């Protein structure tokens, strides 16, 4: 299309206002993107990042304001129009079909007729060119999250976008995978494309991005050069106040092992699941023990085995507070003082369509809170408990006793973590405690985990976030393809070694192995 170069800007969003009913998601937001720059969009959950991005991508229409593409005023009525302009987007939640292959998934997004074989060749070429190795005929269900993201990125690159929008891309990646993605993004920028990069992770924004626009409560509070800011100063701008750093000093020696896993092996149940292989681990009371690992290496399976959602073959393989629990169900384990927080908030740790007072019942119905009497639910007690959890853990909502699904990710996570911590559990197992959670909420949750450990609980944190692990863990083990490494004291192991263990190095024969997914 014929364009005039509008002051060198590729895309300008001017005074964008978006209201939903009487809620203002964006109140006069202005954002300018240059070709060849990686531009960060920073803000807490609910700051209006997603709304703004959806407007740029045509998924939402602004209430007021205008968009300029290379100086020319435009409307973007739908995502198809955005793609036609050259705007591509990788969403945080992928839209891939598990049962289809990589190239079939990509074919679904290619307008017009296509030929699978030549498309597969293009996919292979582009993915190799940009350092995003993909096997076109691999089944998506077989692939870990990091590789699925590559499919989304390659799918966008096939459209030769001028602007690539990425919504929290590294939330699901390991440091090595993230680094690989950064190389690709920098390369795209060098080619003169623009990247709009949404993230919570301030360190990577500082490393990667040329400029950063910071949103707070739907408004732009600053536009900065992230390289000359510190993570703390960026966090301050985002939150509008100082973010408390986590205090994880160890006061005394650790207690006995309250959660013990001994030689746990479990075959995968699902066709594409991971088998757990001879896992042994001791989690001592008074300490936070972390399991690091790339997504999809058995974390979910390990969590389900520990929680009792899936039973182990022998009682002795999982011991909680001295009681063999391998074959006991989740309710019995809770009664022994264990608490669990799974990774997925909506649909696993909480029922989205239920109010908080009902969600409290989900895990607390048999844990000695008298919420249920001879089969009947005590409504005033569940409401009181929900209110207590919300108050203690700073869960913010717009209406009292809201539906869980209406809460932001950070607030809901504070609630489900708080629901368990409120019991003062002896053993706490938590999978990805701050996945997709804003900085303020993440700091609160991490501090609460450390505090619980210092109060004498054995806390096991399964996490992909190495920053988080090194912030709070006393001991670190690494899971890779269903096998667990030895446990190391946190101050005796560095990121590089953890990263190698995550990549599956030092397995059986001791030689580093290739990335099997490449």
């Amino acid at each position: 299309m014929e364009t005039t170069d509008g002051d060198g800007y590729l895309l300008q969003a001017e005074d964008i206002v978006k209201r939903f009913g009487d809620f203002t998601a964006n109140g006069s937001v202005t954002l300018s993107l240059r070709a060849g720059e990686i531009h960060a969009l920073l803000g807490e959950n609910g700051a209006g990042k997603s709304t703004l991005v959806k407007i740029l991508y045509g998924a939402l229409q602004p209430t007021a304001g205008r968009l300029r593409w290379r100086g020319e005023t435009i409307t973007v009525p739908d995502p198809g129009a955005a793609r036609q302009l050259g705007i591509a987007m990788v969403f945080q939640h992928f839209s891939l079909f598990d049962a289809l292959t990589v190239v079939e998934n990509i074919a679904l997004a290619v307008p017009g007729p296509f030929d699978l074989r030549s498309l597969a060749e293009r996919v292979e070429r582009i993915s190799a060119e940009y350092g995003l190795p993909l096997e076109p005929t691999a089944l998506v269900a077989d692939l870990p999250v990091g590789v699925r993201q590559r499919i989304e990125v390659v799918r966008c690159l096939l459209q030769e976008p001028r602007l690539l929008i990425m919504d929290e891309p590294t939330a699901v990646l390991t440091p090595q995978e993230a680094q690989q993605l950064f190389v690709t993004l920098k390369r795209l920028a060098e080619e003169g494309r623009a990247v709009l990069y949404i993230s919570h992770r301030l360190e990577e924004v500082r490393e990667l991005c040329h400029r950063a626009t910071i949103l707070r409560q739907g408004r732009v509070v600053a536009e900065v050069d992230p390289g000359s800011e510190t993570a703390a100063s960026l966090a301050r701008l985002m939150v509008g106040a100082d973010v408390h750093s986590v205090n994880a000093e160890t006061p005394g020696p650790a207690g006995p092992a309250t959660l013990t896993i001994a030689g746990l092996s479990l075959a995968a149940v699902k066709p594409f699941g991971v088998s757990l292989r001879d896992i042994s681990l001791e989690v001592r009371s008074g300490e936070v023990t972390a399991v690091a690992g790339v997504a999809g290496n058995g974390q979910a399976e390990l969590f389900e085995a520990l929680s009792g959602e899936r039973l182990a073959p022998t009682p002795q393989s999982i011991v909680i507070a001295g009681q063999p629990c391998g074959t006991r169900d989740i309710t019995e384990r809770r009664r022994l003082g264990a608490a669990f927080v799974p990774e997925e908030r909506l649909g696993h740790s909480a029922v989205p369509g239920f109010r908080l007072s009902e969600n409290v019942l989900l895990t607390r119905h048999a844990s000695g809170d008298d919420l249920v009497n001879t089969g009947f639910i005590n409504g005033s007690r569940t409401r009181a408990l929900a209110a207590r959890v919300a108050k203690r853990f700073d869960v913010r909502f717009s209406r009292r006793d809201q539906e869980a699904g209406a809460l932001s990710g950070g607030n809901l996570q504070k609630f489900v973590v708080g629901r368990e911590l409120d019991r003062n559990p002896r053993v706490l197992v938590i999978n990805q405690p701050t996945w997709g959670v804003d900085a303020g909420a993440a700091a609160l949750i991490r501090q609460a985990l450390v505090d619980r450990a210092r109060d004498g609980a054995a806390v096991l944190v399964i996490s992909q976030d190495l920053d988080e692990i090194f912030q709070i863990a006393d001991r670190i083990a690494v899971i890779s393809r269903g096998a667990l490494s030895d446990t190391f004291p946190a101050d005796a192991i560095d990121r590089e070694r953890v990263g190698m263990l995550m990549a599956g190095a030092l397995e059986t024969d001791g030689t580093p192995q290739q990335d099997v997914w490449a």
Partner: protein
Amino acid sequence: MGVRLVLEKRPERSRAMQVASPLLAVALTVLFGSILFAARGFDPLHANYVYFIGPLTTLWSVEELIVKATPLVLIGAGLAICFRADLWNIGAEGQLIAGALAGASIPILAPHWDSALAIPAMLLLGMLGGMAWAAVPALLRNRFGANEILTSLMLVYVAQYLLDWLVRGPWRDPQGFNFPKSIGFNDWHLLTTFGDGRVHLGAVFAVIAVIVLAVFMSRTLLGFEIKVRGEAPRAGGFGGFSQAGTTWLCFGISGALAGLAGICEVAGPVGQLQPTISPGYGFTAIIVAFLGRLNPLGALLGGLVLAICYLGGEAAQVELSISEKTAQVFQGMLLFFILTCDTLIRCRVRLEWATRNPSRQRQFIGLEGGASRTADAGGAAQ
């Protein structure tokens, strides 16, 4: 200028719409029914009067309304619970027949057991019969993961043929001139009736069932388990609730109630076994459950509305000489509109006037065809 109809997801389910949606569905059904009547050359006002108001104007027809509503409410309340658990028991018609057969075994096999215990025994057997029939899809689902929609539906035909065989074969009335029917039940084997003798004890059972189930669903942990299973099965497992257990429970309750409806029909208005004992109550009750917002209390209202549909169909046949199959057309429209209107609980509809300049518009029209295949679902669903 283009107008787009935009469906926007609401942050929370609209409570107003939960009430308004079934009313809106009924209104739309009447509206489209009127169009249908007009197209057939009837005065829509008069036709609607005959169909919907007429049945309420005489005592006789009000009693008949209760008779028709009784099995619909009983079954609909049970199905509401199944559907809440995301279990699709659509074989209530078969469970109704199984209950009728089990209960009728007493008057047919022991016609001289004249005792006050006979009726309670028949009711109990009826419930057990319905439960047993419903237990098959539950078992197949728990044991093999078989789809309960298919298994429960197919068992309807098995039950129908079993009934047919029995009334033509072993259970045929020896003095019945070879007509396919069982002996008529004597007074010890018939339900107490009220009024003109058509309304029977089943109506009382229906009201009790509705109240008990409403309390069960809203106040008990088991009811909570059922709702969790329907909304988020994984969360149910995390809560420590057994999937298989809820399946048994839901099929057990709905099967028992369908069986109870069945025995109440044959020990009530029908008074014997014959090849057809239900005008499709078990299927119509699916609409009852949805019209009642999958809430047992709602099933009471839903049952009355659908009972009017049955009576209206008969009245329309008599007064307007149109096929009583119109009742099925109305039922179909009603279910369609309910399911449509239920979208409004989760979403709101907005008209969007897209103002684009004409040259741009052409450009976008050009690409819409090609882009329509693309996977926008992920983006739009965000």
